[in-house]
């Protein structure tokens, strides 16, 4: 034990004179690091109550509690965090699709009562609510926001061909896309037909496509149509849409149905044959008519479907061009109807007499005739030759190309090399423009009264149209049409400026006086909109079931004022898209048995 070792330790007495390490009492509660994970904060408005945070939490610390009533894009639930369970791992923040949940950097919470350590962040006021420091989403997210890209025909060439533009997912792509789904179920609420979306997306992810198709057919008899042309309300409210691209629900539905060429053996329905011996007549082969026919047929009803045009499909046949919804997939779904035992009567328009006869011979009648009257532009010079309504233009085009009906001239309205102007901004206007482009029109112009973002057409359609370099003139109000000396047409239109309407509605275009522009074209197609056409009914029948503009009024079972007569589709609801027509059909499928007392 050398002397040096004995004396060495005394050297540390110098430490006694130095400043102590201790943090002084007044700043013990020092500010933590910027990204310290403290108590939860939540933006109750941005939160959609999808429950992803509650599912990911391995301590079952987060309960979804009712905070407000459920709406289309919000389940009305808000996460309540139980700090008797939480471990501050912030996985809930990283998985939050709307990025509303975050952790503040506050770390002290002392209390005598154990029940107090539970609160709904963003709803119960806490001192750390507006703390921007702490752990917030965005830097490293557990969910991936971008969608699996869909392969499409290249922009320039697709203008010339009728081949389908969207090519569909491969199996691997579909499973990868389906794996993105957080299964929160908000899309089910937004879909008018309330399809079992998370379930069938899960089935696709796990690879059992048969179960997926069966789940789809639970509420939708025309899934391939929906898979190609639906307005996708579900994708607008998808949890991913908040901060990234929503799950491609429509394309996944299409992928599932395209896996099977003939769905008849695949779909297994087991419902009680309550309709045996009962007869139902369906007028109109549109989506609503097909839904009523199919679901009643599998329940044993004897269904007679009357369709004025040579094929079924209604607006989905003549309103939607074949590069978006090819004939084979329509035929496939019509085969399903035949498989279900529905007697189809094509090329047989119903008039007042046949309607009365059907009412007497059938226990119930369903009117799903759709909007067959194209609205006029109500502009002076509209009756000049070369001005045609978009509805008739598309109807004749599809009849001419896809059926051998003799009621239409072989000569198409738009000839190659012509310049065409389309007035209107909806899906029909876009389709009319793209069809005339494919008919060889040298140049196509769409003229619309409001701004581009107000166009009711699907943003994907507008993008595709612009890809095919179709020019869109916005804020143009048509004034009058005149004939130019060389037989062409001059569309005279005035610019409009937008005036705010009542809150929530689109702004109203108001004409700027005194300025007139000229647009010299060969053909003008009016796509202002469509209206109901019940002239085939007897006047007193029209009086009982429809209002003065021709819209049919129905109760919650879908029954009109006339007992035994049901109605659905674009004639009844104003949303005027296919899935709402199917939803009306589904309501009637429940309504008829209940009215007949068979339930």
């Amino acid at each position, binding site marked *: 034990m050398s002397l040096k070792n004995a004396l060495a*330790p*005394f050297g*540390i*007495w110098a*430490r*006694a004179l*130095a400043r*102590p*390490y*201790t943090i002084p009492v007044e700043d013990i509660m020092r500010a933590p690091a910027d990204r310290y994970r403290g108590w939860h904060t939540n933006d109750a408005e941005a939160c959609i109550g999808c429950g992803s945070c509650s599912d990911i939490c391995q301590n079952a610390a987060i309960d979804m509690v009712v905070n407000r009533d459920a709406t289309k894009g919000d389940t009305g639930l808000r996460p309540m965090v139980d700090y008797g369970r939480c471990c501050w791992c912030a996985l809930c923040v990283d998985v939050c699709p709307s990025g509303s949940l975050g952790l503040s950097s506050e770390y002290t919470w002392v209390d005598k009562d154990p029940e107090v350590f539970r609160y709904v962040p963003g709803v119960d006021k806490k001192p750390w609510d507006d703390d921007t420091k702490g752990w917030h989403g965005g830097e490293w997210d557990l969910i991936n926001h971008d969608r699996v890209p869909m392969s499409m025909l290249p922009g320039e060439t697709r203008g010339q061909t009728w081949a389908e533009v969207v090519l569909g997912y491969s199996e691997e792509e579909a499973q990868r896309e389906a794996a993105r789904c957080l299964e929160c179920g908000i899309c089910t609420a937004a879909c008018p037909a309330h399809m079992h979306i998370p379930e069938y997306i899960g089935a696709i992810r796990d690879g059992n496509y048969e179960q997926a198709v069966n789940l789809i057919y639970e509420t939708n008899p025309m899934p391939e149509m929906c898979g190609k042309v639906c307005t996708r309300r579900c994708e607008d409210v998808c949890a991913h849409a908040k901060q990234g691209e929503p799950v491609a629900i429509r394309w996944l539905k299409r992928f599932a149905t395209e896996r099977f060429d003939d769905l008849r053996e695949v779909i297994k329905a087991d419902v009680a044959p309550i309709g045996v011996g009962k007869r139902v007549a369906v007028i109109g082969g549109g989506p609503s008519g097909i839904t009523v026919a199919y679901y009643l047929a599998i329940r044993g009803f004897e269904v007679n479907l009357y369709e004025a045009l040579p094929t079924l499909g209604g607006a989905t046949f003549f309103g939607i061009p074949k590069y978006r919804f090819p004939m084979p997939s329509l035929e496939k779904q019509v085969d399903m109807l035949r498989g279900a035992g529905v007697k189809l009567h094509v090329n047989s328009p119903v008039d007042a007499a046949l309607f009365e006869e059907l009412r007497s011979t059938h226990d119930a009648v369903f009117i799903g005739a759709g909007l067959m009257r194209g609205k006029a532009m109500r502009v002076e010079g509209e009756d000049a030759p070369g001005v045609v309504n978009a509805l008739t233009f598309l109807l004749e085009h599809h009849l001419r190309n896809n059926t051998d009906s003799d009621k239409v001239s072989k000569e198409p309205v738009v000839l190659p090399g012509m310049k065409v102007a389309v007035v209107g901004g909806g899906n029909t206007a876009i389709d009319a423009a793209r069809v005339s482009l494919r008919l060889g029109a040298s140049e196509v112009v769409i003229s619309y009264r409001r701004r581009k973002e107000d166009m009711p057409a699907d943003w994907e359609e507008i993008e595709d149209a612009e890809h095919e370099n179709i020019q869109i003139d916005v804020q143009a109000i048509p004034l009058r049409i005149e004939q130019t000396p060389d037989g062409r047409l001059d569309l005279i239109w005035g610019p409009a400026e937008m005036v705010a309407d009542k809150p929530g509605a689109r702004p109203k275009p108001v004409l700027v006086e005194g300025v007139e522009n000229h647009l010299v074209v060969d053909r003008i197609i009016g796509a202002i909109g469509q209206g109901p056409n019940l002239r085939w009914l007897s006047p007193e029948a029209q009086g009982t079931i429809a209002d003065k503009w021709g819209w049919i009024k129905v109760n919650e079972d879908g029954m009109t004022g006339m007992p035994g007569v049901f109605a659905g589709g674009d004639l009844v609801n104003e949303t005027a898209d296919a899935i709402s027509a199917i939803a009306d059909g589904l309501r009637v499928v429940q309504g008829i048995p209940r009215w007949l007392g068979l339930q």
Partner: protein
Amino acid sequence: MELLLQILWSSIGVLIAVAYGLLTGGIVRKLFARIQGRVGPPVYQGFIDLGKNFFVRDNISHGPMFYFGPALRTAGGVGIFLFIPAIVGWAPGENFSFAGDLLLVMYFMFFGSLGMALGGSAGGHPHTPIGAGRGLSQMTAFEVPFILAVIALVADTGSFSVHDLTLAQAGGFLEWNLLTHPFAAAAAFIAMLGMNGYAPFNVVGAPNEIPVGPMTEYQGGFIATLGTGRAIFAIAKMILFMDLFLGGATSILEAFIKVFVIYMWSVAVAAVFPRYRVDQSMRFFLGWPALIGVVAVLLALF
């Protein structure tokens, strides 16, 4: 009558000694904290701890013998204090030094530890006998150099009375035994490290081996008594060392300062050394400190 007056003064002396002991304990805790880089408790923390221990509600006792532990410990400390002159030449400060001598004082020193051993063992906790065994064996080890130093001093001055030993050093600090009997002082001061129970010889009450040894079962009021006992025991020993080696004190202030300085010696060592095991500390004390003691005795005799 004069005896009654002396009893009054001495009891006041004891109270002052306890208060000063607790105060010094607070200062020592502050010093340890400072060297550890901490702010440390307030200096009066000793009094608060004492108060808290008194106010503990129920004292779990293990029979009558259990009470004797702290009682004997405190009695030992008070005994030492009463029979040595705190302040020489001033009647109240003389206490009862005329009645007792160095042997009685040294008996009181052993008396405290024996009491603790018996009391603690009554507690029935297995840690206590091990702790007591350690305490007693370590005590015998550090008593050897101390006794040799005392023998050297007594041999030199010829009387066992502390009063006489102190008077023998009167006349300036050159006369202090510290300087006149350096070897005896060295042996005694090293032995003092063991007596105070600070590191490197605090294995008896060390918390992380056998938690607090004999004191395992004591709580509440017992610990309060033990606290006062330790306070008075420390101060009394310091006064004894002051009387034997630093020429006693003629005024209260001088007593306070000298006691504090002696105390600082054991604190200086304690803050920087870890603990010896019992056998190591025995080997240490019976090593060169005992040798120095023997040399001191030889010097004193020849």
